[in-house]
């Protein structure tokens, strides 16, 4: 099986870059596709709470350098479709490529509240990147919406900038006990459970949100809201691969999934890196198993029988532009031939077609006619039986 790449990684976040580095480190030809820039969710983080790697951007730089050092090619293109193979075919914004193994590490889409005005207020109070936009809210109150590990992480990030951070949890928090302790230690952070955001307030810039809790509806005056709900995995990206309710992929034979894009993934940096490493190793193992390649006996093989009878007569000198029709003159045979000949004439852009007709359907072809056709033409379309 020939393919453009041994391994194609979709997404260059913590999981994707790690998978790519491990695979390239084993000598495989690896490409990692990223829509924007490397890092994925990492670039959102200034403080890494469960990792010794410094800030998010610092770790991104280190992971990227390590991957490129191992020989990974970073390609800035969006992968829109993956068709499992072999070889697997990837449709990207830069064209189609093939790979022997694919690792999907595309992460999750940005958070989304699904409320009127959300699109208009994006960048004007509605943000999904605490590290990018946090400083804009210095000295002002913000809200974070969500219940997962990322929600807590971003709330902690924002606590360094905002005067108050209200974490609006739609149900009960799902984040880890470690995160919970960190949040509890932050005086500026308040966690409100069973809280649903029902409306965005503000003209031109966000001024507040309407929140409904068990105690009723109330207005929360905030300058910024950071939604981490409504995030979806790359469900549907890979043909035939199942996804959970949030669009996160369930790996199956031949398709590796790593990081947040994987159904059931722990949403931590450590988990993403471990997932990426495992996927890279799995890619290496899959290709090592196939390195000897499967050898099969060709089921279509056969031998040409010895030609019987007279040897072939010397081929004519006619060229492929010399095409003729030969009709047996039965009713409609000539019309049928002319119809088919016309299609071939158009297909090969032939200037003209030769034509010959048997005098009668019931007699054998005139040998002279056969001689003429054989010498003059490269191809003759014959109507023999109606």
């Amino acid at each position, binding site marked *: 099986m020939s393919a453009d790449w041994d391994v194609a990684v979709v997404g260059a976040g913590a999981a994707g870059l790690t998978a790519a580095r491990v695979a390239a480190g084993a000598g495989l030809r690896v490409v990692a596709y990223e829509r924007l820039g490397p890092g994925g969710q990492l670039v959102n983080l200034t403080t890494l709470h469960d990792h010794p790697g410094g800030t998010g951007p610092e770790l991104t730089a280190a992971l990227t350098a390590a991957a490129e050092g191992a020989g990974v090619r970073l390609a800035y293109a969006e992968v829109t479709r993956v068709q499992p193979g072999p070889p697997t075919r990837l449709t990207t914004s830069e064209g189609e490529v093939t790979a022997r193994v694919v690792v999907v590490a595309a992460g999750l889409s940005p958070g989304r509240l699904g409320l009127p005005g959300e699109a208009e207020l994006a960048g004007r109070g509605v943000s999904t990147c605490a590290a990018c936009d946090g400083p804009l809210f210095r000295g002002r109150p913000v809200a974070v919406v969500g219940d997962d590990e990322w929600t807590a992480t971003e709330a902690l990030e924002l606590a360094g900038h905002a005067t108050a951070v209200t974490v609006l949890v739609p149900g009960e928090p799902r984040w880890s006990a470690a995160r919970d302790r960190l949040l509890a230690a932050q005086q500026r952070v308040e966690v409100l459970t069973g809280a649903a955001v029902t409306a965005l307030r503000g003209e031109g810039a966000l001024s507040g949100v309407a929140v409904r809790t068990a105690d009723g509806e109330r207005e929360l005056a905030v300058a910024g809201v950071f939604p981490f709900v409504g995030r979806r995995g790359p469900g549907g990206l890979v043909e035939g691969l199942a996804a959970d309710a949030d669009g996160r992929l369930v790996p199956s034979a031949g398709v590796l999934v790593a990081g947040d894009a994987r159904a059931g993934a722990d949403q931590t940096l450590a988990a993403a890196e471990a997932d990426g490493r495992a996927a890279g190793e799995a890619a290496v193992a899959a290709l090592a198993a196939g390195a000897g390649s499967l050898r099969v006996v060709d089921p279509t093989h056969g031998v040409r029988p010895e030609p019987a*009878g007279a040897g072939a007569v010397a081929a004519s000198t006619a060229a492929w532009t010399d095409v003729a029709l030969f009709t047996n003159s039965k009713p409609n045979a000539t*019309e049928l031939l002319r119809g088919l000949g016309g299609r071939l004439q158009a297909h090969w852009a032939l200037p003209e077609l030769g034509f010959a007709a048997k005098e009668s359907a019931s007699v054998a072809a005139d040998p002279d006619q056969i001689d003429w056709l054989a010498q003059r033409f490269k191809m003759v379309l014959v109507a*023999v039986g109606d």
Partner: protein
Amino acid sequence: MELERRGVVAPLVVTETFLPLVQAQARARRVDPRLLVVPHPVGGLTPDELAGRVEGAAGDLLRMADEARGRP
């Protein structure tokens, strides 16, 4: 079939009805002709029906022709 023996690419247009006959002849001559099989009959068809026969066989013809010529 004689034409093929002489190195001419000669697809035979044949209706299903006559296919066994043509095949029997081919066996007798020990050749394996290129066959474009069209539904029976051809005679007595309206121009529209005939156009349908052309339509039905044209794809095979062009493929066969390209293949013989060594083009994809």
